[in-house]
C-alpha cells in the first residue's frame, strides 16, 4: 500500500480541478438560483481559448513558460465572453419565468455550445493535442507529480485565495453576498443586482477557464465534449460541498476527487469486488457519493442552514 501517497496526490489534483469548475455552479446558483448546466461548456471553451492562443497567436516554438500565462488570458477571455453572452441573451430574458425554463435553456445551451465548437472550430471533430510544459515528472515524498500538474498546484490555491478575498473583503464582494441573501434589500442598499449577476457569471467563468487550461495540461488533449462529464462532476462537487457556498465548492471538489481516485485504486482489492476496480467505474463512485450525500446530508458538507433564511 505504499502507493497511497501517490493516490492521495492524484485525488487532490483531480479534486482541485473539479473545485475550480464547481465554484461557477455554486456562485451562479447562490445568486440567481439557477443551475447553469452550460457551465461545463464554459470550461471547455476556456480550453479552446487557450489552445487558440497557442496555435494562432503565438509563434511556433514559444516556450510554455512564456506561452502559458498568455494562454490562460486567452482562456479567460473566451470563457468570460461566452458566460456573459449566455447570461445576457439566454438567461436574463427568462428571469422571473418558472424555474424549469432557464434550466432547460441551460441544457440546450450546453448542447449548442458543444456542437458549435464541433462544427466551427478547425479540426475540432477529433481530439486536439494540448501543448505541454517542458520537463519530466518529479517526486515529492513518495509521490510523483507530472509537470502539467504544477499549473494546478499553483493556480488552485491562488484562485481560492483571490475568491475568498474578493467575496469577503471587497465592496463588490459584499454586494454579491447581499444579493445572494436578499436581492430586493440589496437594491435598497444601492447594489446594482443586475451587474452583480453578470459579475458572478464572469467570475465563475474565470475559474472554469483556469480549470480548462489545467485539464488540457493534465490530459494532453481537449475536445468539444470534455465539459460534459466534468461539468456533471463539478456540479456534484458543488452539491457535495453545499450549493451556494464557495468554500463548499472547493472542499466538495477535493473530497470528490479523493474518493473517486481512492475508490478506483483500492476497491478491486476487496475480495469479490475485483471487477469494479477499473477507471471506467470512477464515474460510478462519484455519483454514488452524490446519492449518499443527498440522502444523508442534503444541504451538503458546508451547506447553508435553512433556518436563517427566515
Amino acid at each position, binding site marked *: 500500500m505504499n502507493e497511497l501517497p501517490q493516490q492521495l496526490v492524484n485525488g487532490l489534483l483531480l479534486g482541485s480541478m473539479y473545485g475550480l469548475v464547481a465554484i461557477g455552479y455554486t456562485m451562479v446558483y447562490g445568486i440567481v438560483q439557477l443551475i447553469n448546466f452550460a457551465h461545463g461548456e464554459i470550461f471547455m471553451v476556456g480550453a479552446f481559448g487557450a489552445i487558440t492562443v497557442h496555435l494562432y497567436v503565438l509563434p511556433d516554438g514559444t516556450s510554455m513558460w512564456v506561452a502559458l500565462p498568455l494562454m490562460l488570458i486567452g482562456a479567460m477571455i473566451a470563457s468570460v465572453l461566452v458566460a456573459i453572452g449566455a447570461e445576457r441573451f439566454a438567461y436574463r430574458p427568462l428571469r422571473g419565468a418558472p424555474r424549469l425554463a432557464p434550466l432547460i435553456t441551460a441544457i440546450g445551451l450546453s448542447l449548442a455550445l458543444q456542437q458549435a465548437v464541433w462544427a466551427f472550430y478547425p479540426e475540432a471533430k477529433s481530439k486536439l493535442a494540448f501543448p505541454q510544459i517542458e520537463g519530466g515528472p518529479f517526486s515529492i515524498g513518495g509521490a510523483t507529480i507530472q509537470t502539467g500538474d504544477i499549473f494546478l498546484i499553483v493556480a488552485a490555491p491562488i484562485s481560492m485565495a483571490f475568491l475568498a478575498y474578493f467575496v469577503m473583503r471587497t465592496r463588490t464582494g459584499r454586494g454579491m*453576498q447581499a444579493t445572494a441573501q436578499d436581492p430586493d434589500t440589496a437594491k*435598497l442598499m*444601492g447594489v446594482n443586482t443586475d451587474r452583480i449577476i453578470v459579475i458572478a457569471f464572469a467570475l465563475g467563468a474565470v475559474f472554469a477557464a483556469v480549470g480548462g487550461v489545467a485539464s488540457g495540461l493534465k490530459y494532453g488533449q481537449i475536445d468539444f465534449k470534455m465539459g460534459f462529464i466534468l461539468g456533471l462532476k463539478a456540479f456534484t462537487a458543488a452539491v457535495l460541498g453545499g450549493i451556494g457556498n464557495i468554500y463548499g465548492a472547493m472542499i466538495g471538489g477535493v473530497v470528490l476527487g479523493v474518493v473517486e481516485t481512492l475508490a478506483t485504486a483500492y476497491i478491486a482489492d476487496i475480495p469479490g469486488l475485483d471487477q469494479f476496480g477499473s477507471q471506467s467505474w470512477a464515474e460510478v463512485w462519484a455519483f454514488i457519493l452524490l446519492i449518499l450525500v443527498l440522502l444523508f446530508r442534503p444541504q451538503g458538507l458546508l451547506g447553508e442552514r435553512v433556518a*436563517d433564511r427566515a
Partner: protein
Amino acid sequence: MTALLEVEDLKVAYGKIQAVKGISFSVDAGEVVTLIGTNGAGKTTTLRTLSGLLKPVGGQIKFNGKSLKKVPAHKIVSLGLAHSPEGRHIFPRMTIEDNLRLGAFLRSDKQGIEQDIRRAYDLFPILGERRKQAAGTLSGGEQQMLAMGRALMSRPQLLMLDEPSMGLSPIMMQKIMATIAELKSQGTTILLVEQNAQAALSLADHGHVMEVGNIVLSGTGRDLLHDESVRKAYLGED
C-alpha cells in the same frame, strides 16, 4: 417652499389588482409623517414604490423636486432616500458590522463610514457588543435596530420605516418607538408606516389613514389621535 417628498395621485398595481388607487401626500424636511391602516391598505406597497422596487402605473413622485418614476431601485438610496423594509430583511449570514457597511454601500468616505458605524453602536449598544456576530442570530427587536441602523448608514434625507414595531414585545416596541422619537429630535425626516396607530400618531407631525388603497383621512398626528373614527377603527375603542 416645496416639500422634500411629494406624492401625487400615485397608483400602483399588481397585475390587474390595484393596490394603491391614487394617493397624494407630502413630507417636509424635519417632519415625521405616518401612514396608518390595516393590513392590505397599501402602505407597504407605497413605500416599495417610493424606493423603486415597484413601478407605479400612474401619478408622480417627486423627491427634492426630481421625479423618481424612472429611477431604478439601486439608485434611489444615492438620492437620499433610505428604506428599512417590512420584516426587517437584515442579511442573516453577514455580520452585524457588514450589514451596517452595506447600508453605506455607495459611500466612499471611509472615515465618515467608521464614524457612522460608531454612531449606530451608540444608538444601539447591543449591536456594538455583537458586531462580529451573524445578524441572523439576533432577536427580532435587535434585528429591527440593525435594520434602522443600516438605513441610517446612507445618511438619508428621508428615512422610511416600514412596520418597525411588527412582532416585537411591548418593551422592545417602546424602545424602538423611543429611538424613532430620538431620531426625530435630532432632525431626521421620517416616513413611518405602522399598524400600531397609537404609537405612530403620538410621534407624528402628520398622519394619513389608508384603507384599501386610498387615503381616507389626513391630519396632524394629534388630531387623528383624537379623531373618533380613528379611535374606533384603529385604537380598539368602541
